[in-house]
């Protein structure tokens, strides 16, 4: 009898622990130092706005095909809400596309212009400008329906141990989040502020650059910039960040 109650109590207790351990998404902003946070809070102190400013110039610059972004889309403000739901499923291509890929598709299909290179200043500028329009909106990327297989791929990759150090994203960013790695805090790894200005890079960078850094950190071969794996991870990360708001362009240490 006593033993039965004990077992029952144990079950209840373990449920309570599980419920408590259910991760509440915590933005990297919350863990950043007050100095870094105040940089992000003040647009005139946030170095990412140098890129946003360049993005504004590019937005209204006519490309080789004669069209500028503004010719079709109007003011950048028309992009409000876009980054909050990207990567989004493209029915014509039967696959999801990221914001950067969408910008490049616009360039090649409608502007008769060259693709911009991943992590080039121009692409970072345009994606920062578009991202800024959704700042403060909740991250809401579709995970089900046609996106389901890509979400599942992302979830699998997130939990796959990689590299000579044999670590998965999950082990650090869920299991060890909040602890330290070489003196730096391990964040939960939410991608709600990209592209962002990283003080360590002294520059703007995309989510791709961040993931590449993590992969070389665990001594794995990074994915190529156009790998479908990166899109899948980005989708899964957005699903994980449900409950956070878009912070683009964020500042991180």
């Amino acid at each position, binding site marked *: 009898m006593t033993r039965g109650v004990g077992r029952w109590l144990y079950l209840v207790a373990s449920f309570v622990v599980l419920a408590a351990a259910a991760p509440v998404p915590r933005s990297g902003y919350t863990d950043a130092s007050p100095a870094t946070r105040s940089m992000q809070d*003040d647009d*005139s*102190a946030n*170095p990412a*706005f*140098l890129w946003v400013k*360049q993005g504004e110039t590019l937005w209204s610059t006519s490309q080789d095909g004669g069209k500028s972004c503004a010719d079709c889309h109007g003011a950048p403000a028309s992009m409000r809400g876009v980054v909050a739901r990207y990567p989004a499923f493209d029915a014509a291509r039967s696959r999801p596309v990221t914001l950067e890929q969408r910008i490049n598709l616009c360039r090649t299909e409608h502007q008769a212009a060259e693709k911009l290179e991943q992590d080039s200043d121009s692409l970072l500028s345009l994606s920062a400008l578009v991202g800024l329009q959704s700042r403060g909106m909740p991250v809401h990327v579709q995970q089900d329906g046609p996106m389901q297989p890509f979400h599942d791929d992302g979830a699998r990759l997130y939990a796959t141990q990689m590299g000579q150090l044999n670590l998965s994203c999950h082990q650090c960013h869920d299991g060890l989040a909040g602890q330290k790695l070489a003196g730096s805090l391990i964040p939960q790894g939410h991608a709600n502020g990209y592209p962002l200005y990283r*003080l360590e890079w*002294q*520059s703007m960078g995309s989510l791709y650059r961040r993931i590449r850094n993590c992969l070389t950190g665990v001594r794995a071969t990074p994915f190529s910039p156009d790998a479908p794996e990166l899109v899948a991870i980005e989708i899964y990360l957005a699903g994980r960040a449900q409950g956070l708001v878009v912070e683009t362009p964020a500042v991180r240490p």
Partner: protein
Amino acid sequence: MVRVLINVPKTAHRGEIIEIKVLISHPMESGQRRNEMGQPIARDIIHSFRCTYNNEVVLEAEFFPAIAANPFLSFFAVAEDSGTIVFAFVDDHGTEQVERAAIIVE
């Protein structure tokens, strides 16, 4: 030409202390790094900065290689008259760039 973000209040009351914020897009290459071929990367920093308010110097600064990329300056001035605040800086190539901001004092 490098990108510069200037934040100066458009209007101010006479005698008011205003905050001036300047963010300059610049690599501020220290000259102490080497490229992947092992050759030194030439120093390329903004070495002097000067801010004048109606031709009166508000801030004059010398920069050295330990300044981070994309330097940010924040300083204060007393708004006395309407006019122009001029920001001038020179980099290691000897290029001088001048930016202006207008202020109306009531």
